[in-house]
């Protein structure tokens, strides 16, 4: 499931609401949060712009790809947009599986692909005033690329 929203989310509530079958042995969550500092600059807030329509389409494709690659029982991606202050939630990924390795790798994959494919852009408001568009990071491309080579499921590690 995917959701794109301005409202905050509650990880505990999402975990409780998530359907899971009796053979789920592993649940991984990733929460991304606005940091107080960007490099040396203290942030007062950031604004996340996105491309309505394409965002939902990309997130759905990324989720489908994760479910092709790993034996997931369920998955959830929530991504916020609009104005967010330091400490606020930006993104949530949850994966459930029989196997911990699948849950870990799929969650990591979802974040890496989301970072490089989902059409969101961060505008940082400096505490001193003025806004700066965040530049894409080469390290994010590198992280995403490590999944490109192998379309096969990773080594399985039980429960």
């Amino acid at each position: 499931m995917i959701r794109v929203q301005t409202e905050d989310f509650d990880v505990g509530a999402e975990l409780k609401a998530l359907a899971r079958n009796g053979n789920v042995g592993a649940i991984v969550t990733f929460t991304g949060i606005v940091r107080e500092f960007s490099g040396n600059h203290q942030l007062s807030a950031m604004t996340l712009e996105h491309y309505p329509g394409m965002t939902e389409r990309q997130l759905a494709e990324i989720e489908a790809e994760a479910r092709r690659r790993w034996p997931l029982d369920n998955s959830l991606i929530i991504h916020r947009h609009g104005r967010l202050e330091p400490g606020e939630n930006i993104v949530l990924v949850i994966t459930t599986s029989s196997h911990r390795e699948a849950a870990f790798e799929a969650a990591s994959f979802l974040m890496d692909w989301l970072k490089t494919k989902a059409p969101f852009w961060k505008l940082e408001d400096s505490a001193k005033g003025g806004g700066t568009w965040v530049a894409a990071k080469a390290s994010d491309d590198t992280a995403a690329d490590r999944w490109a080579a192998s379309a096969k499921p990773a080594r399985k590690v039980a429960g």
Partner: protein
Amino acid sequence: MKLVYFAWLRERVGKAGEQVSPPPTVTTVGGLLEWLRGQGGNYAEALKDLSAVRVAVNQEYAGHEAKIGPGDEVALFPPVTGG
């Protein structure tokens, strides 16, 4: 053809989107980018470094060789930075 712009590309072009009618010789993403750049002013400035421009046609990523036509929605934006 509908064009939409995001992030600093939107700011540099000076609008979020517009309807354009490029000449019939413009049939690919690459051709569209060259034609837009040829409009000068904000367009030339916004598109001066094409390595920093990503393109989606009808909400799917597209390369410079991708075909485009009058009914398409073409989006221009910088590399994404969500997550």
